[in-house]
């Protein structure tokens, strides 16, 4: 004899399912991360975002190997934010912002340093 309840088998209602945990709230925005990250890096390395123009020159208090410390710290923080699910949007945006800063850089691809080394 079966223990099945025939009424339950023919019930039009779907079987009750376990409650799924609500998705974690999305925090941050990729776009905002890109904008903030790029702006912060330009401010740090060029004084202002006008530094994108090569004739504006290079304005930073960083010298020698210290120039790379902020980038290392930025990369570590952005990476840590990116791999945490709650903050992954922020982190991804900051990482992309770092890429944008490097690729856009100060001026064009091959000219700025050539001019500098000619002046030295």
């Amino acid at each position: 004899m079966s223990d099945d309840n025939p009424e339950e088998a023919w019930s039009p209602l779907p079987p009750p399912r376990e409650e799924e945990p609500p998705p974690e709230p999305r925090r941050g925005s990729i776009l905002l991360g890109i904008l903030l990250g790029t702006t912060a890096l330009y401010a740090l390395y060029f004084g202002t975002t006008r530094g994108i123009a090569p004739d504006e020159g290079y304005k930073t208090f960083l010298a020698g190997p210290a120039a790379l410390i902020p980038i290392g710290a930025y990369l570590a923080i952005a990476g840590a934010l990116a791999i945490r699910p709650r903050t992954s949007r922020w982190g991804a945006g900051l990482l992309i912002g770092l890429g944008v800063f490097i690729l856009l850089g100060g001026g064009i691809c091959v000219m700025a340093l050539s001019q500098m080394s000619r002046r030295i």
Partner: protein
Amino acid sequence: MITSGRWSPTGTSWWASVHRVPEASNGHCYTLLMIGLPFAGDGVVHAAVLGLGIRAALLFHAYEKLRRGLSDPRLRPIAGFAVAFGAIRSRVLKWDVSRQVSLADWWGNGDRSILTGLVGACGVHLGKRLTGYRESIGDLLPPAVALALVIGPVGCLLTELPGTPIGGAWGIARTPGQAATVGGPPGVGFQPSIAYEIVFHMAAFELMWRFRDRLPRPGDLFICYVTSYAFFRFGVEFVRGNEVLWLGMSRPQWFLLGIFLLLFWRMPRVFGKSLRPKLEGRVA
């Protein structure tokens, strides 16, 4: 050779100009087609167009994720790692220590290389390892990268030294004023090597658009794209105007010779199997 006076010392004329120039030796005329460098050394134009390329790549990447039905949130940080470490590679591996500029200047204003940014996907591997994502995303990124490299280098084409002197009756030329800014002799036609690259990436994007769901294994698209670009770039380096390092070959060519060994090892896996049939609708 330009005798018509279009290239005045302070002139900024940059449009295509066709000249009938008399040949001194035989008195015959020949046609001289020169395209000027419209924004020589203008970093703002360069960055604006490059920024458009990056933006287009990010949008296309988002579209491809949707099309493939990929909704894993870990793909976001992986894309971030890919962009950040690609950019870092493009700067670090292009470092020319012989120029003797400060570390800060180099980091802020240093050269960037498409080649070193593209070859080797350490950012993607790091992102996948840190997030625990196992699937291959080698088919997801290349079309977006190609799109960025169609649009972004237009900024280079408008602002930079294009390539080697042609010595013929056509090419990209600079006014004397521009030549003083970016170097090189004025009025001489130079190879539009960056335009060649743009055309290559356009063709690559078209092919990837058509075959992106049909290669035998996940990740093959990336291998095909990088391999074809490596071969193309090796050839175009001969007219690119980069400094010759040794045996008539530039630094990127020597770098590519090392990369070829890796690519020769990877390519048989792609062409060892037939294409997948074309799928309709979404692909996983």
